[in-house]
């Protein structure tokens, strides 16, 4: 009863391996957090799930179907930035989730009115009704991400992919977004993959936490090997005690940073 199935997936860029031999089974409705050092290939893996790129080797299937060759309505996505259309009002951004599959990408007349009414409901739910006619550039970062999530969900995807969705927000906003996401999750039962830099966030929101890391390492050729899933934690019940994870995988803390030279 695996819903998303990843089998022996490799990804290379210009002959440089980024991801190696990834295998994964995710059940429908699971919330999977993905953490790992910066540059280890988390976003790349998400792009593979999204079918924005095709893996060099291996296959990714959803619900036993054939591997997708390009992004489509069954996979929704929210990036850290650029997830809403700057030239559409907040409401039109939601309406777009309905009208884009149509021939001209437009609604007119009665259809438009209905779509707008539905969009207003969504805005009400995500707390953006009061700025329905504003353009995204006038919204704060948190409001923009909320809109992006609302827009993605309005297309009713079966899988939702989040790439550091709260990475650019300040801590307070971040907390309120966690709440918002948890609330939405309670209402639908989508399968979610979320890449995050924040271990705490990963454990707080996820059912599972995957850690990406390199299993092999050649000090002379640091780019010779790619990363794969090295840990797969159960994170239900807040994944206590997740704090010890740093002791196990110190690279997560240092992230993009080489240790300061001793002096």
């Amino acid at each position: 009863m695996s819903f998303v199935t990843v089998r022996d997936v490799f990804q290379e860029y210009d002959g440089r391996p980024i991801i190696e031999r990834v295998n994964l089974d995710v059940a429908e409705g699971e919330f999977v957090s993905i953490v790992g050092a910066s540059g280890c290939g988390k976003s790349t893996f998400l792009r593979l799930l999204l079918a924005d790129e095709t893996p060099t080797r291996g296959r990714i299937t959803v619900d036993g179907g054939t591997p997708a060759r390009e992004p489509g309505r069954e996979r929704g996505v929210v990036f850290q930035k650029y997830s809403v259309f700057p030239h559409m009002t907040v409401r039109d951004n939601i309406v777009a989730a309905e009208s884009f599959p149509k021939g001209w990408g437009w609604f007119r007349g009665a259809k438009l009115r209905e779509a707008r009414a539905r969009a207003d409901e969504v805005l009400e739910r995500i707390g953006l009704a009061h700025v329905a006619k504003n353009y995204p550039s006038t919204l704060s970062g948190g409001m923009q991400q909320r809109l992006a999530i609302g827009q993605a969900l309005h297309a009713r995807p079966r899988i939702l992919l989040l790439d550091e969705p709260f990475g650019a927000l300040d801590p307070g906003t971040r907390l309120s977004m966690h709440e918002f996401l948890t609330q939405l999750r309670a209402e639908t039962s989508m399968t979610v993959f979320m890449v995050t830099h924040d271990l705490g966030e990963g454990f707080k929101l996820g059912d599972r936490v995957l850690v990406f890391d390199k299993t092999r390492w050649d000090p002379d050729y640091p780019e010779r090997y790619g990363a794969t899933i090295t840990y797969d934690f159960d994170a239900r019940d807040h994944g206590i005690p997740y704090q010890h994870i740093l002791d196990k995988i110190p690279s997560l803390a240092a992230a993009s940073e080489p240790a300061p030279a001793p002096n």
Partner: protein
Amino acid sequence: MRLLNRHPTRPTGILLAALPFVAVLIAYWIGSEIRLAANPQDKLLPAPETIMNTAGRLFTEPNKRTGEILLWADTFASLRRLAFGVGIGALISLTVGVGIGLLPYVRRGLSSFVAVLSMVPPLALLPILFIVFGLGETSKIVLIVIGITPFLIRDLSQRVLDIPHEEIVKAQTLGASTWVIALRVVLPQILPRLIAAIRLSLGAAWLFLIAAEAVAAEVGLGYRIFLVRRYLAMDIILTYVIWITLLAFLIDFALKTLSRKAFPWLGGGL
């Protein structure tokens, strides 16, 4: 205090802004005085009041034979050509630019061709142009189109490529086809850039217009300038030059305003 931290006060600022204009006027006036003192009939640098009189006459006095005011007829003809040329150039470059920026196949097929085209000196091709498009309005408009389109295409296709890949992916996850992405995601976002690019290429458009009108025309601002050059009527030439500058300025201002008004979502950017 460092010079870069010093800001002129408001009146000083206005004075400063006026300074170079006044300086040019005075320099002209002195030059004109000197020449006119040597030869009162000198035509090269007519006195400012002569220019004023000429300008007044050009703007108001109808031509004896045809009854129309030449300056306005010239302006109308030239602006019409300019509008057609720029408009057609804009349409072509929108289509091709979106194609190149969005579709890998079109990009491979056309981008190096457009790059080479943009290097061809259009003025040197005038004879071929005339034969293919005739001596009428078409060839003048085509010269403008040929002159500005390669630049517009390159600029716009670059802007399409600059649209964050995330937005394109997002649109795909909402089920948009290539056509819908072009129409609803890409097109509206490069329209402001189109206006900006047009503003940048208007100088070239004027140039090509004047060059085309110099070759063959019966009416037009460039035509008149080249015609009266035959008897060195600098008062008329200068009036026309100032008038063209003013028109260019107004068009530029109108486009800027249009861009601000028509694209509120830019939020002050650009």
